[in-house]
């Protein structure tokens, strides 16, 4: 038995948060193994390993299934899940509001608009520029779309460092509708080839995961994951309000700009490669705050791990429920996430009526 470490002092949840960090790595490892070992083809990791250890050679087909289909899918699921959870936590810290989720308040829709605009209007770019952008055009456009949406939302919803939940959600609905309408117009403008691209992009699952796609999203997501802990102290200060954050020595405007940029980069990249996936950004930080407290120094890294774990898990569910077909993963996350959202809304009205 592992003895649970007793906290250093009452009211100090740091030890618990560190323990959670370790357990989450363990859980992620287990679910990754499960994800690698299951799939429509029936290839099993243990079978491959046994073949290897027995001195035989694995079939090329089995290796391809494992290395070029399941492994990139696993990596993509983990990366997108981590990106969504961390951008949710960042956004909630910025808005001082546990219900801010990039997918719900229009940031995802803005990123989607950017991606669709890149696909449909990309042909209008000067040839040299288009060639230089290459496969990065769609994700970069998604990031720009998400950035614009976040800036606009913050401008509309935050007054004197406070965000009213009602204003934020309503502004998010309006932003989402606006971005959706613009996206619709672009789809009508699209020609047949672009429509094919749009359909594949819009499927919004991890099914299209490939190493090239990962290579496009990773440069946007990984730096955010790695550097987000640098924002932790600032966001902790924000929890007291912007004025109090300033008085505790935090450069408020700088933290705001960096947080908005980080949310846009990770949400945009996630949307560009995996489509819109909701609720991970709400459920993960909420569960972690309940378990280990709202200190962002622990919340952000743990959110990355739990987000990765949950999305890889949801992907396994999505592959199994209607096998051999696949559910869009957004449906799975919504089935589990939407009730959690409602519970937060009902239980914490006192906190939310700011």
């Amino acid at each position, binding site marked *: 038995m592992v003895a*649970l470490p*007793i*906290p*250093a*002092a*009452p*009211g*100090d*949840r740091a030890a*618990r948060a560190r323990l959670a960090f370790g357990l989450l790595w363990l859980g992620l490892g287990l679910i990754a193994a499960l994800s690698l070992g299951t799939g429509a083809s029936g290839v099993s990791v243990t079978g491959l390993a046994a073949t290897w250890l027995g001195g035989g050679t694995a079939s090329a087909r089995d290796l391809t299934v494992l290395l070029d289909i399941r492994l990139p899918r696993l990596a993509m699921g983990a990366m997108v899940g981590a990106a969504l959870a961390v951008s949710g936590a960042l956004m*909630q810290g910025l808005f*001082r*509001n*546990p219900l801010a989720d990039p997918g719900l308040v229009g940031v995802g829709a803005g990123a989607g608009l950017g991606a669709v605009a890149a696909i449909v209007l990309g042909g209008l770019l000067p040839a040299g520029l288009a060639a230089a952008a290459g496969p990065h055009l769609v994700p970069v456009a998604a990031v720009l779309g998400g950035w614009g949406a976040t800036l606009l939302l913050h401008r509309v919803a935050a007054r004197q460092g406070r965000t009213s939940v009602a204003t934020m959600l309503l502004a998010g609905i309006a932003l989402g509708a606006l971005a959706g309408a613009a996206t619709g117009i672009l789809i009508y403008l699209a020609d047949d080839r672009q429509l094919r691209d749009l359909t594949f992009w819009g499927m919004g699952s991890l099914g299209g995961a490939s190493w090239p796609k990962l290579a496009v999203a990773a440069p946007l997501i990984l730096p955010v994951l790695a550097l987000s802990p640098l924002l932790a*102290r600032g966001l*902790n*200060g924000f*929890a*007291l*309000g912007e*004025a*109090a954050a*300033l*008085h*505790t*020595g*935090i*450069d*408020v405007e700088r933290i705001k700009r960096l947080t908005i940029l980080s949310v846009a980069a990770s949400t945009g990249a996630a949307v560009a490669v995996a489509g819109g996936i909701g609720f991970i950004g709400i459920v993960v930080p909420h569960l972690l*705050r*309940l378990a280990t*407290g*709202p*200190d962002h120094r622990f919340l952000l890294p743990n959110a990355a791990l739990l987000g990765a774990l949950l999305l890889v898990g949801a992907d396994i569910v999505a592959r199994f429920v209607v096998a051999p077909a696949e559910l869009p993963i957004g449906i799975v996350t919504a089935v589990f996430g939407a009730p959690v959202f409602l519970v937060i809304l009902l239980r914490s009205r*006192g*906190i939310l009526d*700011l």
Partner: protein
Amino acid sequence: MLEASRVTVRLGARPVLRDADLRARPGTVTAIIGPNGSGKTTLLRALTGEIACEGRIALNGIDVATARPARLAAIRAVLPQATPLAFPFLAAEVVRLGLRSGLSAGDHALVDEALSAVGLHGAAARPYQDLSGGERQRVQLARVLAQVWHATGPDGPRWLFLDEPVAGLDIAHQLMVMDLARAYADAGGGVVAVMHDLNLTAMFADRVALLAGGRVLGTGAPGAIIADRPLSEAYGCTLRANVPPARSAYVLPQACGPAPRGRTRPRSGDALGPPPADGPHEPL
């Protein structure tokens, strides 16, 4: 030394504070009083660098308008009127936010000391949301104290800026909070407090600035400002200082016994929350 000269703050085109001068020495408690809307809080927000203003404000010789936030945070802490928290922090975690932003960041024992100082010994593991309004206010005071725990440092005196620190507190805790402010000043720090309670102001302040209509009507010793003419003029109603009422009962803080001392054991019913969820319950 806090030196503010000709401070003017405009909201839109309308000046809410005009040509305010204020000087506060370390080792003293300076109270800012005045009716609602007279510009007290606006002056405090200008003094702490929270809002932009015309005029010049220097704290320990540092220009408040241009100083980096971290530089100011090392020498002064600010208690706002109310601090709603968006996330489920524990009392100790709130205090730790203050501790980590000051120069005593490594001294973890200060969390409990600060909570004890405000009479919340043993409340470390209680969720902030479960505390009463008065307890929350005192947790925030503990956070602010932890940020500038030592009243003086190698770089000079430290400062407490308190916006209505006793609002919503019962009389015993009002006295306790004012005692803390007094002790901070006696230890060499500076205290600037916006006050509504004129009796406590008269009792604890060394200097009083009286505001009305966005102007400083006068600054001086409590005896000179807490007097019939200045008060009546500022508050717009006839006020008489040092005159006991003929009939109705009254309680003056000046006549109270010693305030409940923060560091001693809390009285029953005060700050005794449920035991911490984990770990043995520490006997109080």
